[in-house]
């Protein structure tokens, strides 16, 4: 049971993955909106860079991208890179949906196909375990049970299908 708990992506972790998706999409949108207002930035006109940074859209966009980075680092601390990356791509889907339903832009059939493919890919990954390799941490001596827990986790991760959250072991 402990083992299933260890692999189970808890609600708080889903929140972090949601943060990765939403912050990336929102940050990119704000940034591109702001940059279109300020115009092109070049190395020869550093004043234009400062002007861009003072634009509120750009500033909020940068803050959101920092939030994205924090959430991304958090997610990578407990999940595989190949598990987190599809969550990042879900941001593109979010952007297309916002474009269609909030901004009432036309979304072409090709883009709908793209949305379907990304969503399918995310669904595949989300159905499997978040972590497939245990990394050794030094600071487990104060938690005597955790080593045994890690060992059992390794055994379960060898069979990804059995390690599905809420699977046979719970």
């Amino acid at each position: 049971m402990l083992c299933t708990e260890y692999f189970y992506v808890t609600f708080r972790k889903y929140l972090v993955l949601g943060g990765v998706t939403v912050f990336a999409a929102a940050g990119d949108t704000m940034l591109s909106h702001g940059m279109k207002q300020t115009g092109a930035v070049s190395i020869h006109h550093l004043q234009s860079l400062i002007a861009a940074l003072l634009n509120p859209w750009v500033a909020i966009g940068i803050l959101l991208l920092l939030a994205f980075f924090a959430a991304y680092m958090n997610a990578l601390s407990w999940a595989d890179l190949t598990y987190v990356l599809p969550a990042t791509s879900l941001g593109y889907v979010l952007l297309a949906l916002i474009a269609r339903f909030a901004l009432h832009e036309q979304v072409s059939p090709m883009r709908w196909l793209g949305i379907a493919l990304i969503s399918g890919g995310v669904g595949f990954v989300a159905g499997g375990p978040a972590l497939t390799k245990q990394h050794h941490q030094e600071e487990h001596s104060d938690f005597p049970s955790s080593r045994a827990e890690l060992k059992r986790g390794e055994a379960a991760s060898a069979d990804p299908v059995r390690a599905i959250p809420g699977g046979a072991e719970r």
Partner: protein
Amino acid sequence: MKHLYTWSGILIVVFFTVVGDIVMARAMKQVGDMHELWRRSGLWTIVGRVLSNANFYLGVTAMAVAFFSLLFALSWGDVSLVAPAAASLTVIGNSFAAKIFLHEKVDRRRWLAATLVAAGVALLAG
């Protein structure tokens, strides 16, 4: 000749993005589960462990290089080719690199997912 410039630009972007992601993923695994750390010793322990990790700085550097090389690649080729091609190849490249360097078990499920996402990103941004 223009194609050669565009595609080498794309490959440079993909290379540095993959290096950045892989090194950052390794750094965060060395830091340890942040939720666990938070429960046990709080925010400042996490901040301290991240800032004292050499791979973290390496990862940030590679990501910064990737970002600026994307800006250059965009000036060499069309946005409608460079952006989706780079994003899509990064997904595939990361799956290979995660298997080789991070020893993640990239099983059929994850390959399928990576392929679907790469195709979807290419279609969306195109």
